[in-house]
């Protein structure tokens, strides 16, 4: 019998080009905010998990330097990796530590400093996130290239256009403009997006999430501990997870991510969500929009729209506040930024704020069902995590 787990404190650093701070200093910005939010200190935490992809940044042992700087040592901390879903892997690991009865209060910290390397190096490094030898070394396939293959297949099969893709970017930039922590705080137009240069046809610069430095932290607690810490715990009702093949050549089709579909199914089953009509349960969702096509596929993989109809949700504005399901009200990866290891943790932090109705003016969803969903993908569906949060346990 596993125990119930709640989020009792959240913190997010300013996202962007953060060459002004070191990796542990950046982590501390989020950790400090999470401690203040929960009115706890480092002495209250029994263990911690650090999500950090690394490679582009110089620290080889991020859990050690971050743990020490944040005053968590000698408590045990480890680093976990699940590509762009690394943050969700950190949350999941912390969740299991509490659910199993091993610990009562655990912190999940996501931190990434991508700007420590020049852009071509970062592009190259992310390009390796698949089957290195068979899909990178020989050909020079880049990460936008992976998603571009999905975009061409999707557009060809269902009739979505480059304009539809740009509408995702426009929405996420709009909400990013209302989020003081976002990397891009400027709204854009469909024309600006359509006129931006191609990175990997048909994906353009404005279809793509940026290279970002940032950190996020969440404090998780057992039911007994959570009740003592806060009057407004946000419960982790379920986490679904799955992996996919490293080889794109082994994918059956290019219009959805199987790992995300499996993860959603698992999470819906655990949380008692109707998989035929999940939107009726949720007030708000965070989905993995590393590229605009990824957000549209997420609508379908999560069952928000039928296969082949996801682009209609954005075309009709149904994922804005007031639509059937508001998505990425913090700007998403697209505008808030995508510091790989921090992204999944920041999704949980954002949804906790949304459920507590503490988001900034103009980007607070209407909370009536008291449930929210985070969808975090690593690679091109190499990893997937779907986390469901709720106001009742």
């Amino acid at each position, binding site marked *: 019998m596993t125990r119930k787990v709640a989020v009792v404190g959240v913190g997010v650093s300013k996202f962007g080009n953060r060459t002004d701070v070191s990796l542990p200093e950046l982590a501390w910005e989020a950790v400090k905010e999470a401690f203040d939010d929960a009115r706890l200190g480092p002495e209250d935490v029994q263990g911690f998990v650090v999500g950090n992809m690394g490679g582009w940044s110089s620290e080889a042992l991020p859990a050690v330097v971050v743990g020490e700087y944040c005053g968590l040592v000698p408590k045990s901390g480890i680093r976990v990796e699940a590509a762009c879903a690394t943050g969700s892997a950190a949350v999941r690991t912390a969740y299991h530590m509490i659910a199993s009865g091993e610990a009562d209060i655990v912190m999940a910290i996501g931190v990434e400093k991508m700007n420590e390397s020049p852009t071509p190096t970062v592009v190259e490094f992310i390009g390796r996130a698949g089957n290195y030898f068979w899909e990178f070394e020989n050909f020079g396939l880049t990460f*936008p290239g992976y998603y571009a*293959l999905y975009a061409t297949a999707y557009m060809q099969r269902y009739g979505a256009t480059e304009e539809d893709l740009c509408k995702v970017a426009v929405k996420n930039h709009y909400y990013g403009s209302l989020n003081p922590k976002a990397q891009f705080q400027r709204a854009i137009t469909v024309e600006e997006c359509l006129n931006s240069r191609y990175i990997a*046809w048909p994906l353009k610069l404005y279809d793509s999430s940026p290279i970002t430095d940032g950190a996020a932290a969440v404090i998780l607690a057992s039911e007994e501990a959570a009740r003592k810490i806060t009057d407004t715990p946000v419960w982790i009702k379920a986490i679904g997870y799955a992996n996919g093949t490293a080889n794109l050549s*082994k994918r059956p089709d290019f219009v959805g991510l199987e790992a995300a579909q499996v993860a959603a199914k698992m999470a819906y089953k655990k949380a008692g969500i109707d998989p035929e009509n999940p939107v009726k349960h949720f007030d708000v969702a965070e989905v993995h929009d590393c590229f605009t096509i990824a957000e549209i596929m997420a609508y379908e993989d999560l069952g928000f729209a039928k296969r082949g109809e996801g682009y209609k949700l954005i075309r009709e504005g149904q994922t804005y506040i007031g639509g059937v399901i508001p998505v990425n009200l913090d700007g998403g990866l697209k505008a808030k930024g995508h510091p790989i290891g921090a992204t999944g943790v920041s999704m949980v932090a954002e949804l906790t704020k949304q459920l507590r109705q503490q988001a900034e003016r103009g980007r607070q969803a209407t909370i009536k069902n008291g449930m929210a969903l985070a969808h975090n993908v690593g690679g091109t569906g190499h990893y997937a995590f779907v986390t469901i949060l709720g106001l009742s346990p």
Partner: protein
Amino acid sequence: MEHESVPLYWRNIPAYYRLVARRCKRCGEVYFPPVLKCPRCGSNELEDVELPQEGELVEFTVLRSVPTDFLKQKPVILGLVKLGPAKVLGQIVDAAPEKLKEGQRVEVAFRRVVVDGKYGLVMYGYKFRPRP
């Protein structure tokens, strides 16, 4: 970024030069890249099977932003090609991006992949080009 070449012994993998896949003798599944054990049925009994030299372009993309080793080849066209029983990812060469179409016939071409400037190593491998 400086080219961090994989160990040279990787270059001795035959499938890097000839498109040799592996077929499971028990369940018949074909794998490229080749495997030593069938991930589907677990059998260790597999045999080499040469893929056809001609196939169909399933999907493609045109990379305008490429890794440093590929700057001279810009723009790079990357395609997923159905070669008989297997799908293979590779560069499409000798083609104008605007004239390419999904479903088009392509054939295997043996081409230079990367030149390692530091050590002067020239590496070759398979690519694809449109059928005339």
